[in-house]
Each structure stands twice: as C-alpha cells, then as structure tokens.
C-alpha cells in the first residue's frame, strides 16, 4: 500500500542528526542505486541501502524500524562503489546508534523461561543487560 508521507521539521532534525553521526552529506546521494546493486546481503534486507539513504534524506524516521541496518555487515562494498564517495555503511552505523540511543529494551527477564535461560550463551545474556549501561 502506498502511503503519504509528510516533510516535517522533526524529519529535518533527524537528517541533521544522522549526518552529524555518520559524517556523511546524505543530500549528496543521487539515488543511482549502485550501493543496492552491489550489496552482497541485499536479498536478506527488507528495504534496500539506497532506500535507506532516500528515507533518511526525506526525514522518514520509520527507517529505524527496518531490518536493513542490522543486516549490513559493513563490508564497505557500497562505500567503494559510490560515485558520490558517500560511506553508506557509516550511515548504517549511525542509524544503528540512533536506534540504540532510543534505549528500547526488548528483553524482559520474566519472559525468559528457565529452559531457555539454561540454553542461552551466558555472554549473550550479559551483553543484553549491559546494553544500556555504558
């Protein structure tokens, strides 16, 4: 379903923040699609790297709900190929940081059953609890 989007001041702020975090000028993106075309994991993504760039540029914060930035392995293929010399993986990283700074905790200790807790690698459990502490 196509939906209508609104260009807002919040969106402009969001773009500014991502540009500051990544150090990249996202408005320079030409939407040529070279990044998506070269990405080795693009099949696993729900939206493509070039769409990430576009949505960020238009200030669409829904971009933070996509899987793409978590699937990005920072292999730098997009960075090497970008004709505008933008570092798309840095933008990915900036989006991950922004999402993490929202400090949404998806792990509720009460939801973990005893059997699961025994199965889980202890290092994963420790990381999950330390996530917002530093």
């Amino acid at each position, binding site marked *: 379903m*196509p*939906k*209508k*989007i609104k*260009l807002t001041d919040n969106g402009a702020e969001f773009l500014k923040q991502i540009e500051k975090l990544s150090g990249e*000028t996202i408005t*320079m993106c030409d*939407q040529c699609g070279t990044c998506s075309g070269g990405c080795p994991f693009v099949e696993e993504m729900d939206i493509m790297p070039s769409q990430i760039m576009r949505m960020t540029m238009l200030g669409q914060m829904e971009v933070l709900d996509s899987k793409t930035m978590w699937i990005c392995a920072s292999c730098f293929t997009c960075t090497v190929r970008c004709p505008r010399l933008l570092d798309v993986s840095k933008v990915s990283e900036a989006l991950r940081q922004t999402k993490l700074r929202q400090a949404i905790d998806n792990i509720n200790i009460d939801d973990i059953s005893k059997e699961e807790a025994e199965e889980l690698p202890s290092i994963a459990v420790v990381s999950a609890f330390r996530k917002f502490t530093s």
Partner: protein
Amino acid sequence: MKLASLLKAAKPETDIYVFYTDLRAFGKGFEEYYKKSQKMGIKFVRGKPSHFTENPFTKQISITVEDTLSRQVIESDFDLVVLANGMGLSKASDPIANFLKLAKSEDGFFKEAHPKYKPVDTLVEGVFIAGTAQGPKDIPDTVAQASAAAARVMVTLAQKEFKIDPILAFVDQNKCDGCEKCLENCPKNAIVMNGNGKAEVVEALCLGCGSCIASCPTEALDLHAYTSDQLYAQIDAILLNKPEGEKRILVFADNNCTYRVADALGVRKMKYTAETRIMRMPSSGRVTPNLIMYAFKKGADTVLIGDCEINNLPVPWTSKVGKENIEVAKKRLEEAGVQGDRIFFEEFNAGALQRFIDTVTNISETMKGLQPITSEVKEGLCQRK
C-alpha cells in the same frame, strides 16, 4: 538551482526541496554546481507536483507529489512555492520581427538561417541574431554566439562591395511588353517597372528562386545560370537516344532538398530505378508549365517535381508557384488528350533518402500501365521545337 543555492547560502536554516522530472547538468562546470547545491543540503526530489492547495488560515501551500525514486507520495506544507517556467521570447520582439521580416521557429524564438552552418545569420541578409533571441542559453553561450554575430557583421561591413549570388532573374527589354504580371509573382518585390514601361529586376533584392518566370507571357523573364535555353537543351540531352520501349521519369529536383537527396543517394551507392533522370532546378517555382510540356514532347513518360517540405523552404512562396504551375501543366496535358496521371509532386527533406527511392519506384510501377504518348499528340504539347 542557482536561486536555491543562493537562498540556502543566505539562510542555511531554510529547508529547500527542488521537484524535477529530469535534471541535466550539461555544461562545463554545471555538474559541480549541482553537487554543490546537494552538499549544501538542498533536497532534490524526482517528481512533478500534481496539485497545490492553499491553507486559508496559515496561507501555507500544500503540495502533493510522488517521489518517483522511492515510489512514495509526499503530501506536505511549504511556506513558499516557486514555479519554474519555460523560457520564451519577449512580446517586445514582435514589432522587431515585423519590421525586419524575421521568421520565428515553432518554439517561438527567432529562426536562424541554418541551425548548423549559419547559426547566427537570419533569412534576412544583413540581420544577425545572438543569445536568447535565438533560443534559451546561458551567459557563456550568449557571449560566444554574440562574438560570432559580431564577426559576421564585420565581414559584411568590411567589404567595399557587397557580393551577391550570380543566380538572378533578368528581363529581356526587347521582349517585355510591360504587362506587369510578374510584379505580383515576386516574393521579395524585386521586380519594378522602369522609365520605359518595362519590367526590371532589382538585383540586390532578387533571390534567384525563378518564381517569376512562369508568369511572363512573352518569355522576357529569365534566370541566369538556369535560362530557359539552357534548361530546354538539358531536357534535349537527357532524353536524347531514348531506346524504343524504355520509359523515363524526369525529376525536376529543387536545389535545396531533392537535389541533395539525389546527391546523397549517389554518395551512399544506393540504387533506384534506371529510368530516372534528374535535373537540377533552383526551386520548384522555376519549373514552368512549358518546361514540363517540353519534357513530355521530348519523350519523358512521367515528370516528378521534387520540393522541400514547406517548413524548410528558404522562400515558402516558391512551393505555391510550383504547385500552380503543375496545375496548369496538368490541365494542358488533359486538353491535349494525354491519358493518366503523369505529373507527380513530392516534398522531401534532406534526409529522405529511402522515400526518394520509394517514390521513384512507385512512379515506375504506375508507369508500366501507361501507354506511350503518340507522336502526333507530342507535337501538339509544346510550341517549341
């Protein structure tokens, strides 16, 4: 883009969106300009706004537009909307155009004599154009074109004597009976009556199109380099020794288009029917009914008059005269009792190579069904021996 970057430079907090359908930074240094505006944070969205509505309270303007790159519809409010219009020629140009008799092309700008070979000349001798009078362009291109126009003006002014084409009409003062019929048949009003009550050609105005010649009942008018004697002799030579049973298409090819097409066909070694014989004419207006009749008398089976497409004609008038001449010739053929369509008219542009071949092939096919004109009928077609 320029205005947007100026605004962004003056007020960096402004959020600027540029909606476009296609963006080409074609000139030297223009791509850098585009990159610079993107770097400043101006956002380029590919898509044409479909409608604008004004909010009656906030006076903001809401725009609905599809971002065709991300396939999303944007509906948003803007404080200021700037519409970019296409460039046109100022209305003030109309009196100038009327005064100097300058032609305008379909896009509304002044027309140049030739887009490639004469880009700053106009169809009017001694008048030159440059800059946005000729078409939309930027400052460097305008300066380049203006320099060219200035150089062309200097060429004209530096001459002690102004040289003109030798292909000019002339009047045989002994034959002219002063009927004044030719006066209205000159597109440039280059024929005047002299003190002796005879017509005279003003050579500085004459274009050498030959449109006037058919109008002269006494054959006093003629055209240098294309005199009637020369043309009749050409027809004689072309149709001399025509073998029994063979047919001939005589093509009167106008010099601007049809002759060039035929020339290009030769250069490219393209084949067309060997029944074709080509004669070069200054324009279709020079093809008088007498010439056509003489061609039939000497053995041509069909005649094709080739002309330019009317938009490409240096003088559109010649086409009108040419068509009138053809009508006269057709009537004369009918009166003489000649069967069938034998006179064809076709407009070519300089690139219509295949169409020329197709045209003569079709004529050749029709010609197979035509009986040869009998020699008695032939004799009656034209008074000239």
